[in-house]
């Protein structure tokens, strides 16, 4: 590892620190300060991890689509690395939103899983980005890998509006997506804080992953010592 990549930039520490602080605050407010919800009671406190992880998965995948497009336009490897890092980070958030959603579904709907449009499309989105990562592993040539992954990254983003609007478009068991307009102020605050916490953590994850990918690429392009 080069000296340059072992030294953490100050910005990265700031992003991580902000994310962790906000997360601590948001979790505290969500679990202890906010009142239980009228219909669902305390179980709706799952919203504070479930909804932000869902939102940020979409944001991360949107970043994959944007940087895939930028890569195809400019052929700058850096954009390919950001797209890849965003997809992998988004997959983690996506898995987290699926898992917390299942834990929420059991006490409210009585089942762990339901084949409802929102859930189905979220699962499909997860599979799409797993496939995105699989594609990268099946191509050896760096340049082809970047191009094809970018093309697939743009194709996969078709699922984003489907996930985002599915609860509203189709007759769905899932409630319409929560926005600051649809939840009470006392729930809005922890939800908002946690959403920003997840955003900062996501930026840190992508940043860190990007550095690792760049280091990998530097290693790949360096010919082995003769």
């Amino acid at each position, binding site marked *: 590892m080069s000296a340059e990549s072992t030294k953490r930039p100050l910005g990265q520490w700031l992003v991580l620190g902000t994310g962790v602080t906000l997360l601590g605050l948001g979790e505290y407010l969500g679990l202890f300060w906010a009142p239980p919800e009228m219909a669902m009671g305390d179980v709706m406190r799952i919203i504070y991890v479930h909804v932000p992880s869902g939102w940020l998965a979409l944001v991360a995948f949107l970043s994959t689509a944007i940087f895939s497009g930028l890569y*195809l336009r400019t052929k700058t490897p850096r954009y390919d690395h950001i797209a890849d890092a965003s997809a992998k980070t988004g997959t983690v958030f996506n898995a987290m939103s699926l898992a917390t959603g299942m834990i929420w579904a059991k006490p409210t709907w009585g089942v762990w899983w339901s084949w409802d449009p929102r859930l*189905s*499309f979220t699962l*499909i989105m997860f*599979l*799409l980005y797993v*496939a995105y990562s*699989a*594609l990268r592993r*099946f*191509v*050896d040539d760096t340049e*082809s890998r970047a*191009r*094809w992954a*970018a*093309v*697939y990254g*743009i*194709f*996969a983003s*078709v*699922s984003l509006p*489907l996930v985002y609007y599915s609860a509203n478009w189709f007759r769905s068991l899932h409630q319409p997506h929560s926005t600051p307009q649809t939840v009470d102020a006392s729930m809005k605050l922890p939800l908002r804080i946690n959403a920003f916490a997840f955003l900062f953590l996501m930026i840190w994850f992508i940043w860190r992953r990007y550095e690792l990918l760049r280091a990998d690429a530097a290693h790949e392009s360096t010919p082995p010592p003769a």
Partner: protein
Amino acid sequence: MNATLFATLVAIVKKDLLIEWRTRARLSALVFFSVAALLMFSFALGADIQTMRDHAGGYLWLGLLFASVLALSEAFRVEAENRALEAVLLTPADARAVYLGKALANALLLLLLGALLVPMMLVLYDVGLDGPLHALRLLAVVALGVFAISAPGTLLAAISTNAKSKDLLLPVLLFPLLVPVLLAAVKATALVIAGDPMGDAFTWLSLLVAFNVVYWALGFLLFPSVVDE
């Protein structure tokens, strides 16, 4: 669409359909495979005729989906074996026209397959149709569905043909992308077969049209990046 683009498109479609016709053994193997798939669904689900009738649309689309993966992975085999795609792309032909031609040829092949499978479905799953107009409506749904399969399928086949483990990679890439298409196609097919008292079919057909527009546009725009020299 300018004239050269259109001429290339037509030339590619003609070439692909001609190859398909000259290698009829491949085509009949594909038909055999999809019919066998339809049979296997009825064996797997037991001989309950009501279940089959209710889910006929789903079986039809599963059969078509599996067959389309086989057809698509073959789509670039001839080119890959003879490095002929590079040759086509070395000519002044527009890569986008090559894509449209290949995708259109694949869609027509799948449409032919669908047209053969629909009567099989009617017989095997005891689905009744009232008259030719009903059959035509069913065929229109099949056409919308296979065009929506072919657009991303052709592009992804071009990618997977040049990657490692191509036969494994194509369905991994394609299936999650096609689930929404499959969902809409199955719903629309079921509504056409069983009747549509609520007028829901329009929603699913619009969704299919929307997928066609998006996937064909994306394929058209992105294919040059796939085959970039």
